[in-house]
């Protein structure tokens, strides 16, 4: 996983609440067996509308998504995170994220930042009135900065450390091999098994 420390870029305002994972990446894209090439599927249905914010020339190349509340609800598809990253997004800001989406994003190095709704509103207004405005998402100082906005955000220390270091969860867990083996040795015999070994 690529480490995330701080990122500065232009931002796209997405004024919709409850943006579910079927909107982020529709099901027919889920047939792919790779982690890349999802950029064209991102918000596919909405992008058919020339007025949709991602289709506006002024927001081309933006890397921060400022979204409405309850972003990423719905299915567990990690493809939603890959699609946002494949498209070029480095961070998503919202007042509330669905749990699984948030977990997936942090595992892939897409920073999801929770800010109060009124701060999100201010950021959306800012980038609507000035699409060239830059937004900085600073994980080192846990702060979002833009013209007229400085807002701290919370992220649990462990998740933050993994992001800052770009650490792979599996290697970290494999260091606990003996704890896992101990646990396995003490599991009751009535626990289900899928096959005889």
């Amino acid at each position: 996983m690529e480490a995330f420390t701080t990122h500065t870029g232009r931002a796209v305002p997405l004024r919709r609440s409850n943006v579910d994972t079927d909107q982020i990446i529709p099901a027919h894209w889920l047939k792919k067996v790779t982690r890349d090439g999802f950029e064209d599927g991102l918000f596919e249905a909405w992008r058919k509308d020339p007025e949709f914010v991602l289709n506006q020339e002024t927001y081309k190349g933006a890397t921060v998504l400022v979204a409405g509340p309850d972003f990423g609800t719905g299915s567990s598809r990690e493809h939603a995170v890959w699609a946002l990253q494949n498209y070029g997004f480095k961070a998503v800001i919202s007042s509330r994220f669905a749990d699984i989406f948030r977990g997936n994003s942090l595992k892939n190095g897409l920073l999801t930042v929770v800010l109060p709704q009124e701060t999100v509103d201010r950021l959306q207004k800012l980038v609507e009135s000035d699409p060239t405005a830059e937004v900085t998402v600073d994980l080192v100082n846990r702060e979002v900065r833009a013209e007229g906005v400085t807002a701290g955000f919370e992220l649990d220390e462990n998740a933050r450390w993994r992001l800052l270091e770009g650490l792979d969860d599996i290697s970290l867990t494999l260091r606990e091999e003996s704890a896992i083996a101990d646990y396995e040795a003490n599991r009751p015999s009535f626990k289900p098994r899928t096959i005889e070994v």
Partner: protein
Amino acid sequence: MGRTLAEKVWDDHVVRRAEGEPDLLFIDLHLLHEVTSPQAFDGLRKAGRQVRRTDLTIATEDHNTPTLDIDKPIADPVSRTQLETLRKNCAEFGVRLHPLGDVEQGVVHVVGPQLGLTQPGTTVVCGDSHTSTHGAFGALAFGIGTSQVEHVLATQTLPMAPFRTMAITVDGELPDGVTAKDLILAIIAKIGTGGGQGYVIEYRGSAIEKLSMEARMTICNMSIEAGARAGMIAPDQTTFDYLQGRDHAPEGEDWDAAVAYWKTLRTDDDAVFDTEVVIDAASLAPFVTWGTNPGQGAPLSANVPDPASYEDPSERHAAERALEYMGLTAGQPLREISVDTVFVGSCTNGRIEDLRSAASILEGRKVADGVRVLIVPGSVRVALQAVEEGLDKVFTAAGAEWRHAGCSMCLGMNPDQLAPGERSASTSNRNFEGRQGKGGRTHLVSPQVAAATAVLGHLASPADLAGQSDVATPAGV
């Protein structure tokens, strides 16, 4: 202080606990399907890793599988590749797989319980958000992403951030014609699609205790639609009776030891939930959704709401958008909404009890002219049982299509889809824009409402069918 059911199961699975870090939990059962696993197996291969516990892992094919002509090669090459990839991966890594055509194939959340693999007090994960279904057995079951699938394959554990606990207590009797599906839709409308965020919900109370395992699975299944990580119901005699004698249920001394343990899996009297919600079962009615998220629902007797009636601007905006997408107008009675398609199936309502109740309504009646009705059993076992009971004949005689098992129109990854603008009454769990096909419009309903709707051609409950039972009576309104 006492502990809740969820806390007990969690504590029993902690492999390692350290200050400031998420607990590392052991996973008892890992379910796989073709959509969220290929990139995980790829990751293993790249890192030169094995599947740590093939004996705790099982795979089935469900999302892409066709429900017609299953003996022919799958027409869509991309779907075919995905299924072939799963077959290749399972063979290479030694994972048990139930492919299309196998008697144990079906929707992953129907297969686990029917094999007896889902048991009280276990941790169950799957790269699928409706893994919450398995919580009906008192298992701690949650959906995970592909990175986590890879993590579980490699280590049989998952680092998990702590959760909060919510009790939803439903006391009293559900009125006639009101089902588990109506109850969970009403709960989601009440607490909202974000209301359960960060929580594990425990459903309790006398109305929950009276439910069958199938109905409990319907409730826990849709916990995710309320935003919760998982939903659980304490195991009891109903649970034990369901499990006993199933393929993978414990036997002999193991059974006794298991039941003794399962009986300890109850929330202690002095345990405290972070949040409590109380619902009076008697106040409920058949419930349907009118919008594009599962929280946008109302009793069938109500009218399409007026967006202007919402105080919260983002809810108002969402309601406006939803009505526009759904092609509805504020104030229109929900009962007057006509549908093109009825879908009975999915991991929410694709079990034998669901098919029985739909069949009991369709028996001796005809599907309304111009309405397409798809009956898709949740698994091959469910299909076989239905055939044994003659339900398939009831469906086809009524003019419904009896299909092969799979996810089907729940998400339309296979050819079963709505055309743009088409409207369905669906027993599945998500009414998102385009969920059942681009431009498709979905109303979530119970199997009973689905069946009554199929007969009348508009959203309806079985109570509306009085006088419609004569086969010779032309169906429709």
